[in-house]
């Protein structure tokens, strides 16, 4: 091999540089987020915890299409309580703290869902309830 002396150290430096985020944090994934459980004490969601953890975004998209496109607004009943399909109408009724629930994981995973560009978090909705 020609120029062995430059290529091999070069490769080593490159690999170290690329894996910087991994080893810099001590080969740990950081503290795992603990999304807050519903403050109201609700124990059951519309689907299992595992399903919601993996697929809540698909469920929200399905609901959106159901409601807006197909006019299918059938309520979802969980333990005798009715929820209308919708982020503001169902999810946030129990998970009333967006910052401690939604944001905790989204920030950790560095995803920026644009739900909140339009949908109101409970905190925001209350902020302008009194003024008229």
């Amino acid at each position, binding site marked *: 091999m020609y120029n062995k002396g430059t290529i091999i150290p070069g490769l080593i430096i490159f690999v170290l540089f690329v894996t910087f985020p991994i080893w810099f944090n001590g080969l740990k994934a950081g503290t795992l987020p603990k999304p807050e459980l519903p403050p109201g004490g609700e124990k059951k969601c519309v689907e299992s915890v595992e399903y919601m953890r993996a697929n809540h975004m698909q469920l929200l998209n399905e609901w959106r299409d159901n409601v807006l496109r197909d006019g299918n607004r059938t309520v979802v009943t969980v333990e005798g309580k009715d929820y209308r399909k919708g982020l503001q109408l169902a999810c946030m009724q129990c998970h009333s703290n967006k910052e401690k629930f939604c944001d905790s994981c989204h920030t950790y995973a560095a995803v920026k869902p644009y739900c909140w560009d339009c949908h109101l978090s409970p905190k925001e909705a*209350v902020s302008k309830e009194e003024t008229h």
Partner: protein
Amino acid sequence: MDKQRRKFLKIAGVTALAGIGAPALVRLSSSNALASEHGAAEEHAAEAVHGAPVEAAPQGVRLGMVIDMRKITAQPELLDKAIAACVDVHNIPQFDNKKSEIKWLWKAPFENVFPGESSYHLAKNVEETDFAVLCNHCDDPPCVRACPTQATFKVKANGIVAMDFHRCIGCRFCMAACPYGARSFNWQDPRPYIKKYNKDFPSRMRGVVEKCNFCGERLALGQEPACVEACKGTGAIVFGDLNDAQSEIRQLLDKEFTIQRNPSLGTKPSVFYIV
């Protein structure tokens, strides 16, 4: 050798003639069929000329609205109440400048609402009253045809021209297509300009077009549209199914003379006015 060449030339000549003649033959033989088809088409056209073209009977629900301007002229505060109800229910921002204005249900003078009608020597009460204007929820909506992402579409179940704000890319083709100016664009983040939030309805974001949705979300709950509810008991705004001969709105349409905004465009508006 010579004989063979002679034979070849003969065959070649006949083949060439057949080749040239074939299209003519085909045309001749098929011209009969063509001619009869043509005749049928002509007959059909003649029918259309003699009798007015028969429109297919409307199917399903088509929601519509009758706005009785006589009642609004008598009580102009009704319209203010209706607009306020609409603004509250749909988190509509209130801007001071005309350019940023977001309009679902708004006021406009007669000559702007009905530019095709003469406003020369208009009755004083009509001239001085502001008309209630909103999306016409056309039966043949030009905005739906213009939308490249199908963010705006006609709901099959009730004829409402609805919007899926998630899908709007803000190209504003629909605004150019709408002949009634019923669509508004969010030039800036509307949130700071919303006076009061309805926690059951989203706001919109910058770069999205919005318009009246005939309160689709309230209808789903069995409620009347906000503006209709605000004028309840006065009969200023009547809402219902235009295809149901027994509905209140049809009874009213059968009884009163109504006008629509720019019907000559063929958009078939679902909003009617009693002037």
